[in-house]
């Protein structure tokens, strides 16, 4: 989403067939044993002989002009081998490129990894050192003298939009507004998406409800802090091991930022300790390379948790106004959203990605979505699992419930009455193909969760979510080995073990060999063509399509070998059940040749067997889901306890069903954390007040109830196995579902996030006189 699909893209039509491996749970996941024994190698676990420790000096100010940097004392400290600051990185012109699901501007990227004219947020890198030990590196940071001129700052998105707000970028004129404004502002760009005639739509309505919502910034919360190890050699080559979702993007960014040839940079993605969208961007990598170049030694840099919170991630905090018009009969006639999104210190929030999700769950003739991308003194936002969408759904799904109550229509019914289906015109362009949204709503209606009795102060919430599936550049190589095994080299980073399993299943299915005979191995940047990053739920869908194409390519090669051995034409050979066979009895009497036999003889009959895919995948299938939640609200403390949770989602085709369910769990619990507790808190100086897991409260096991899951399968017609992305949709509904459940329980509408005990208690107190009067 957000990125235009290539007109030269690859789609392979869905083919319904009997499956042996895809769709069933493999006995063991290839990554699991290494992970339970502590042997899996993450970026921070990798070391090189002679390596130095790199540390970053960060701005303590939210907004300050950097007048001077004096590192001379630090350089003199024994054990310090290199110090770098803005002068050690080339300046960059305005230059846009896609980084994961978000567009970046290299002028801004170089300023994000190292401040130049100004420090723009608390935690902004100002200098970096490499030393023989961590304690020396830390001591050196204290010796660097930075002269700041502290400037007024702005943290809140609504404040930042005001005409008299402190400006982050004095030359920033709002894009996308006619006429072009004369005065600069923090509104970097306005984006509009519309369908039909919004005013006419509201005129047709019998009821119009407009509500305002506010959400706080939240972090992806991966448990593995960013870590990079780099070596720059005298030959002018850089090699990097790093924690990333997309090593090819990291390579591209490094090459741009450091003005190196792409071929001179090799990036190896380590086992990834969680990313969720937050590990598509460079942070430490170029700094480690420049420090290595300057010191002549390998440099390893690992962020602390404090640095992760203050200087990486987060998702946008938002101010959202939702307006929906509906007839008495329950038909939505118009829907409008105003989305004011923090982009952090530079432009580029997730608005282009999440705007299409605003009303796409419903069939609405008249839609207007206006998004404002607003700079403020916070770390540059990055993608976070269905970037920006949970906040819009919070607003839309809450208003849907209000409307249903007002019209006395059942909450599931009103959604069913307006549900998007095949042929529905979206407000962002295309008409929807076959989708499984109605199926998820019907499944929710029939679910035994709906029959569970609720007690006092208990309530039930319903909400829905939609996210598209990204395709993009995808490369893979399938090597058929001489012993009859197959190695798939893939380049779309497997973020958590499910993808390499699914790829192996797909290759086993295609080749007709056992799952155990296939191993999927992650490439570095030198062993495959470019792959886009793991984003937009594309991993299994796009990587899986490349695995299919590479497998079919290898099958053709194997059939060629069989044809040469049998001295027949290629079209007289077919591949079935892991064997080359004569296409018909007319071809001749030949014993089928197994994959292993062909692999063994291939060298003589034309050369080693390998299959390739270098494609741009298009036609990703939109994913829809419906969630149910039961909560109990403690009127004394304002605490919201989850009693039961149900996730129903269309996966198109679940390649590895138990893992798909595990993805549902994980994403929903991130959404639950977002709903109940997670928020960035800043003090009056614009300094983050809770940069640690104690005060930034993520869900723990005891916060979470049993979660039911139900997979709906409406195949994606543009994918050979019908796969849709599954990882992002389930983080979208929880905010709204929980808000709706709180209302059902105690009659208060929570429109400010998070729905933490103090806020719920305050809302209960505010509503108390009214409640008492009832």
């Amino acid at each position: 989403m957000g990125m235009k699909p290539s007109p030269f893209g690859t789609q392979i039509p869905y083919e319904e067939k009997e499956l042996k491996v895809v769709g069933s749970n493999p006995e063991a996941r290839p990554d699991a044993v290494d992970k339970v024994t502590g042997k899996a190698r993450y970026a921070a676990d990798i070391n090189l002989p002679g390596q130095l420790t790199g540390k970053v000096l960060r701005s303590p100010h939210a907004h300050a002009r950097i007048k001077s940097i004096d590192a001379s004392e630090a350089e003199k400290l024994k054990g310090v081998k290199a110090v770098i600051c803005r002068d050690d990185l080339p300046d960059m012109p305005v230059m846009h490129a896609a980084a994961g699901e978000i567009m970046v501007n290299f002028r801004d990227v170089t300023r994000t990894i190292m401040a130049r004219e100004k420090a723009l947020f608390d935690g902004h890198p100002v200098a970096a050192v490499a030393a023989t030990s961590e304690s020396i590196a830390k001591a050196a940071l204290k010796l660097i003298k930075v002269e700041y001129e502290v400037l007024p700052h702005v943290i809140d998105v609504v404040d930042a939009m005001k005409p008299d707000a402190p400006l982050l970028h004095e030359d920033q004129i709002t894009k996308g507004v006619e006429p072009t404004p004369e005065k600069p502002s923090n509104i970097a760009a306005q984006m509009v998406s519309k369908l039909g005639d919004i005013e006419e739509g509201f005129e047709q309505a019998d009821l119009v409800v407009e509500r305002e919502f506010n959400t706080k910034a939240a972090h992806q919360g991966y448990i593995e802090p960013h870590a990079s190890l780099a070596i720059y050699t005298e030959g002018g080559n850089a090699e990097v091991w790093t924690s990333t979702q997309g090593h090819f993007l990291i390579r591209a960014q490094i090459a741009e930022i450091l003005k190196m040839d792409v071929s001179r940079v090799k990036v190896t993605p380590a086992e990834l300790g969680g990313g969720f969208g937050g590990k598509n961007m460079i942070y430490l990598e170029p700094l480690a390379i420049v420090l290595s170049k300057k010191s002549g030694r390998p440099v390893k840099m690992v962020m602390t948790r404090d640095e992760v919170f203050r200087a990486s991630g987060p998702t946008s905090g938002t101010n959202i106004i939702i307006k929906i018009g509906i007839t008495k009969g329950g038909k939505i006639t118009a829907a409008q959203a105003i989305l004011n999104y923090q982009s952090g210190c530079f432009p580029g929030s997730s608005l282009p990605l999440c705007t299409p999700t605003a009303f796409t769950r419903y069939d609405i003739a008249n839609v207007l979505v206006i998004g404002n991308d607003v700079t403020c003194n916070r770390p540059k936002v990055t993608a976070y699992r269905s970037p920006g969408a949970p906040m819009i759904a919070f607003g839309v799904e809450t208003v849907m419930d209000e409307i249903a109550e007002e019209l006395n229509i059942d909450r599931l019914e009103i959604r069913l009455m307006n549900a998007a289906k095949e042929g529905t015109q979206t407000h962002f362009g295309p008409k929807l193909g076959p989708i499984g949204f109605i199926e998820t709503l019907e499944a929710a209606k029939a679910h035994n969760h709906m029959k569970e009795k609720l007690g006092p102060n208990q309530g039930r919430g319903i909400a829905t979510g939609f996210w598209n599936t990204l395709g993009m550049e995808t490369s893979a190589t399938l090597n058929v080995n001489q012993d009859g095994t197959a190695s798939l080299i893939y380049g779309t980073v497997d973020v958590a073990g499910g993808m390499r399993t699914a790829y192996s299943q797909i290759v086993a299915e295609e080749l007709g060999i056992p799952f155990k005979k296939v191993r999927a191995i992650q490439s570095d940047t030198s062993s495959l063509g470019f792959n886009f990053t793991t984003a937009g739920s594309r991993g299994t869908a796009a990587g899986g399509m490349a695995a299919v194409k590479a497998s079919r390519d290898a099958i053709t090669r194997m059939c060629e070998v069989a044809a040469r051995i049998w001295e027949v034409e290629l079209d007289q050979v077919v591949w079935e059940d892991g064997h080359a066979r004569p296409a018909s009895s007319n071809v001749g009497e030949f014993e089928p040749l197994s994959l292993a036999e062909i692999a063994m003889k291939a060298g003589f009959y034309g050369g080693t067997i390998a299959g390739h895919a270098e494609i741009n995948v298009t036609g990703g299938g939109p994913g829809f889901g419906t969630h149910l939640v039961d909560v109990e609200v403690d009127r004394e403390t304002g605490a919201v306890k989850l009693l039961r949770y149900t996730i129903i989602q269309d996966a198109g085709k679940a390649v590895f069903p138990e893992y798909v369910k595990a993805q549902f769990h994980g994403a929903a619990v991130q959404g639950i954390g977002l709903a109940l507790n997670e928020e960035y808190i800043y003090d009056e100086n614009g300094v983050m007040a809770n940069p640690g897991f104690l005060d930034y409260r993520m869900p723990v096991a005891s916060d979470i109830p049993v979660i039911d899951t139900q997979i709906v399968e409406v195949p994606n017609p543009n994918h050979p196995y019908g796969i849709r992305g599954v990882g992002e949709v389930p983080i979208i509904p929880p905010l709204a579902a929980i808000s709706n459940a709180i209302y059902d329980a105690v009659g208060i509408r929570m429109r400010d996030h998070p729905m933490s005990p103090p806020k719920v208690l305050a809302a209960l107190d505010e509503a108390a006189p009214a409640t008492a009067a009832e």
Partner: protein
Amino acid sequence: MKKHHVSTTINGDEVDFLCETSETLLDVLRDHLHLTGAKEGCGTGDCGACSVTLDGVLVCSCLVLGVEAEGKEIETIEGMADGDELHPLQRKFVEHIALQCGICTPGLLISARSLLEKNPNPTEEEVRFGLAGNLCRCTGYQNIIEAVMDAAQEMRGA
């Protein structure tokens, strides 16, 4: 900086190391002894990814100084399996898909083993509270809880 000489037992092996006063046991394990199974997720004792046992007591190794390990017996994830034979908890984690990215897994396994040593027959709620000191961002905990309950049952039967 002058270093301290510390003698310990790690996973049954006698191990000596040198460390600075301010270095944590986690720093020592990871950076000096190359036992990288314990992970640093926060460095403040909030995430549990660095969990090890010290004389049988569950600790966050990021909150213990290296010098405090003198004369102590340390158990890390690297010592949990018996050769090729996985501990029942490790096996059940694999079977139940109780891990995704895996960065929290070593800490969770060490914590879960300590929990089952104290309470071999926990309720689901006891497991949830018993593991509340270990953050996992991928799984939503459900499969972890199932794996621990299943392992507990098997271990009681054994």
